[in-house]
C-alpha cells in the first residue's frame, strides 16, 4: 500500500474478523452461478455453504415470490395502460435479483431502493396499495419507511447509495449489528453519488452492501458504452471487494447477498455485488425499447429467464406438484386482484394534503401557506376537503 498506511481504508487487506472472506469474494470476473439456465444445480466450493439451508420448501417459496412479483408487474403494467397508473417501471426479468437479495435480509436491516424494486417492497411487507399509490400519482411516498425498514423509492439515479452509506455510518455509531443494503442499476455506477458513496463507505468501513442490478440498459444507453470494465471491477478501485453473480440465478444472488451482509454485520465493511440480469421490459411504460434494442438480445435473455430456470430445477427435483402450482397461481391471482382493487378504489388526495407531511412537527410557516392556499381555493366557492393523506 502506497497510501497512508495508518489510514482506516488500508485495513481491509488485513486478515481479521470478517475479513477472511475478502479474497475469496473476488469472483475474478467469473460469473457466480449455482443454477444453470437449464435448471441444473452447479456446486461451488465456497458459496454452496451459504445456501445449504435452502431446502425444498424454501425453493418453492422463492418460486412463489418470484412468480407473484412478476404478476404484480404484469398487473401494474396493465393498470397503467388502462389509465389507472400514471407510470410504471417494469421489473420483468429481474425477479431473481430482487427476491434472492431481499429474502436474504433480516427485518432489522435497512434497505434503500431505487424505483424499480417493487418486488423488494413486496417482500419487505409493503401493502400493494402503498406500492401502487406513488405510481398512480396519489402520493409522493409509498409506505412508512420505519415500519418495514425500507426507504421510499428513489427516482434520482443513485442518490440512495449516499443515504444508505450515511445510515450505515449511523449503524456503526450505534454499535448495532444490522446491515444496510442499497439497490441501484448499471447506469447509477456512472453517477457521482454512487462513487462518492463508495468513497465514504470504504473510508469508514461502513456496513453497507451496494447491490447493483446490471440490467444492461440505462434507459437507451447500453452498459457496454457506460463502462469498459465489468461493473464489479469499478468498486475495487475504491478498495471495496466485489462479487459478480448471475442475477437470474436466485440461489447465486442469495449466496452472494448473505456473504456481503455477513461481512457488514461482522465489521468487514462494504461489499459490492454486480447481479448480471436483464431488463426484459421497457425502462418505464413511457418507453419503447424496440427503438434502440436488438430483438435478438431479448431472445437470448429470454432463454435465461430466472423463473423458468427455477421451474426447471423444481421439476428436476420433483417439487413442482399440482398442489404447489395451484397454490402459487392462486396466490398470484389474489395479489393481482388486490393490487387492482386497491389501486382503483384509492381515494384521491386533496389540494391541501400537499402541506401535511412537509414537517413532522407543526410549523408556522407551512401553516401560513396552507391558510393562504385554503383561502385562495375558497375563492371558487367550493368546499375544500382534506383528503385521504
Amino acid at each position, binding site marked *: 500500500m502506497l497510501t497512508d498506511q495508518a489510514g482506516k481504508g488500508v485495513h481491509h487487506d488485513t486478515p481479521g474478523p470478517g475479513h477472511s472472506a475478502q479474497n475469496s469474494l473476488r469472483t475474478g470476473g467469473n460469473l457466480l452461478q449455482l443454477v444453470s439456465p437449464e435448471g441444473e444445480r452447479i456446486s461451488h466450493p465456497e458459496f454452496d455453504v451459504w445456501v445449504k439451508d435452502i431446502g425444498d420448501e424454501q425453493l418453492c417459496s422463492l418460486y412463489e415470490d418470484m412468480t407473484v412479483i412478476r404478476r404484480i408487474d404484469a398487473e401494474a403494467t396493465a393498470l397503467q*395502460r388502462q*389509465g389507472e397508473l400514471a407510470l410504471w417501471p417494469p421489473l420483468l426479468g429481474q425477479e431473481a435479483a430482487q427476491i434472492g437479495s431481499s429474502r436474504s435480509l433480516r427485518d432489522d436491516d435497512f434497505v434503500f431502493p431505487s424505483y424499480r424494486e417493487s418486488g423488494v417492497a413486496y417482500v419487505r411487507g409493503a401493502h400493494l*396499495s402503498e406500492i401502487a399509490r406513488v405510481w398512480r400519482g396519489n402520493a409522493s411516498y409509498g409506505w412508512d419507511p420505519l415500519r418495514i425498514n425500507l426507504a421510499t423509492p428513489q427516482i434520482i439515479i443513485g442518490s440512495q447509495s449516499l443515504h444508505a452509506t450515511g445510515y450505515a455510518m449511523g449503524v456503526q455509531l450505534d454499535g448495532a449489528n444490522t446491515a444496510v443494503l442499497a439497490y441501484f442499476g448499471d447506469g447509477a455506477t456512472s453517477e457521482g453519488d454512487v462513487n462518492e458513496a463508495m468513497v465514504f463507505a470504504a473510508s469508514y468501513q461502513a456496513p453497507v452492501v451496494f447491490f447493483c442490478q446490471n440490467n444492461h440498459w440505462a434507459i437507451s444507453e447500453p452498459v457496454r458504452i457506460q463502462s469498459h470494465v465489468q461493473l464489479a471491477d469499478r468498486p475495487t478501485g475504491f478498495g471495496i471487494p466485489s462479487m459478480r453473480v448471475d442475477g437470474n440465478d436466485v440461489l447465486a444472488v442469495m449466496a452472494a447477498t448473505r456473504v456481503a451482509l455477513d461481512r457488514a454485520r461482522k465489521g468487514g465493511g462494504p461489499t459490492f455485488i454486480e447481479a448480471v440480469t436483464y431488463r426484459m421490459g421497457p425502462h418505464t411504460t*413511457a418507453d419503447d425499447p424496440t427503438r434502440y434494442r436488438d430483438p435478438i438480445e431479448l431472445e437470448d435473455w429470454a432463454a435465461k429467464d430466472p423463473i423458468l430456470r427455477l421451474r426447471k430445477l423444481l421439476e428436476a427435483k420433483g417439487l413442482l406438484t399440482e398442489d404447489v402450482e395451484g397454490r402459487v397461481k392462486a396466490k398470484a391471482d389474489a395479489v393481482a386482484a388486490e393490487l387492482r382493487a386497491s389501486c382503483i378504489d384509492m381515494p384521491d388526495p386533496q389540494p391541501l394534503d400537499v402541506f401535511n407531511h412537509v414537517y413532522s412537527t407543526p410549523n408556522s410557516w407551512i401553516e401560513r401557506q396552507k391558510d393562504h392556499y385554503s383561502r385562495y381555493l375558497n375563492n371558487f366557492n367550493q368546499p375544500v376537503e*382534506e383528503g*385521504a393523506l
Partner: protein
Amino acid sequence: MTATMIKEFRLPDLGEGLTESEILSWKVAVGDTVTLNQVIAEVETAKAVVELPSPFAGTVAALHEQPGTVVEVGKPIVSFEVDDAGSTNGGSAPSTGDGSAVETSAKSAPAAGGVEAVGAPAKREPNLVGYGAVVEHTGRPTRRARGQVQELGSATVAPETSVIPESAAVATPEADVAERPRSTPPVRKLARDLGVDLQSVPGTGPGGLITREDVQNFSGAPKPAIEAPATQGGRETRTPIKGVRKFTAAAMVQSAFTAPHVTEFLTVDVTATMDLLARLKGNKSFEGYKLTPLTIAAKAVLVALRNHPTLNSRWDEANQEIVQFNYVNLGIAAATPRGLTVPNIKDADRLSLRELSTALTDLTDTARAGKTSPSELSGGTVSITNIGVFGIDAGTPILNPGEAAIVALGAVRKAPWVVNDELAVRQVMSLSLSFDHRLVDGEQGSRFLADLGAILSDPAMVMTMI
C-alpha cells in the same frame, strides 16, 4: 340477476403527459367476449406503440374510433357491456381491511344513462408533468365519487368522507400561468424545427394552450399524415388537401409569386459525356459505385457554379440582404411515396465524383424509403430536378423556395445532329434552367447554362474552368 350495464373505456395518457394516441388496430370486434387485461387494441403514442389491455371482463358493445384515427386523451374509444355484479372494474374485492367489500356502484357518480367512464377523467388536462390543473370548471363534480373507502392497511389512509366532491381548487386561472406561451415539449420542438416563434402563435387549446395544429397552421407546414380515406363520389374523387401535397402547394405558390422566374433552354450533344460514363463504369476504381447521367450532370453543375456564384445565392427579403453561399448544398428533387421532396447534399462542392455518387445513391434511397430527415430537407442552396427519367425533354422548373437556381435535366436520346457540317446520330439532352431574376441577370444565367452545356458536350472543358 343478469342485469348488465355499459362501461366506457376512455383513452388514457399512455406516456407521461401525452395528449393523443393513434388507434393502429382493434384486436376485438363488437360482440366479442373479452376477459380482464385481454389485449383489445394496438395504439401508437408519440413515444411508443403499445397494446391496450381491457379494463373489464364483458362483451364489446361499441368501438368508437376507427383504426388510423388520432384520438385525444380522455375520449371514449370502446364501450363494454358488463354484468352489473361484476362492475368492480374486473378486480376482486380487496382482501384486507374489515372485510366489507367496496360498494362499487356507490363509488361511481353514475352519469346519465348508466354509463360510467373509467380511464382518464375528461377534466384533467395532460400537460408537461402529467396531469395538471383543470382550466375550466363546470361547477359540477364529474370525477368518480368514492364510496365508503376501505382502509387498505395503511394507518395513514383514513378518509372521513364517503363522497369526495370535485373541488374547484384544482382550477388555475390563466393569470397564474407563466409568461412563457403554454405548450407541450413536443410542440415546442415542432415550433423550433419549423422556425416558429411560439410568442406569436395564438393558442386555441384550453387556456390558450398552443397545440400542434396551431403551430402547423401558423407555419403552413404539413401535419403528420394520417391518411384520411378519399371520398369516393361516383365520377369524381375528393381528397382533402393536406400533408405533403398541401406543403408542396404552399411552397410552389410562395416561390412562383415571390421570385420572378426566368427559364432558359439549351440542347446539347452529350455523346462525349455518355462515352465518359461508359468508361468510368468499366473502371475498376468505380466498381460498386452507381454512376448515371445525373451523377455527371450534378458534378458539371457544381463545376459550372464555381464561375457563376450568383446562381448559388439567396434573396433575404427580411434583412434586405443578398446571401452569397460559399458552399453548395445541392438539392435533388425526388418523387417519394409521400410526394415531392427536395433533400440536399451538404457541401456537395467539396465531394469527389465517387463521394458524390455515393451521396446521390444514399439520398434517393433514403427519400424513397420515406426516411429523409428534416435536416436533409432544409438548407439547400441550388437544386437539380431530373425529369429525364420520365422521358421528358424540357420544362420550366419552379425554384425551391429560397434558392436562386434550379436545373432540369431532360432525357438523353438519340437524335440527328450536325457534326462537322454533316448530319450524324448523336446522344442529345435538353437543359432547362430557371433562375430568380432578382438575383441573377440574364447574362449570368446564360453564361452558367452555356458552361454547363459545354462541360456535358465536352467533359474536357472542365480543364478550362477549375
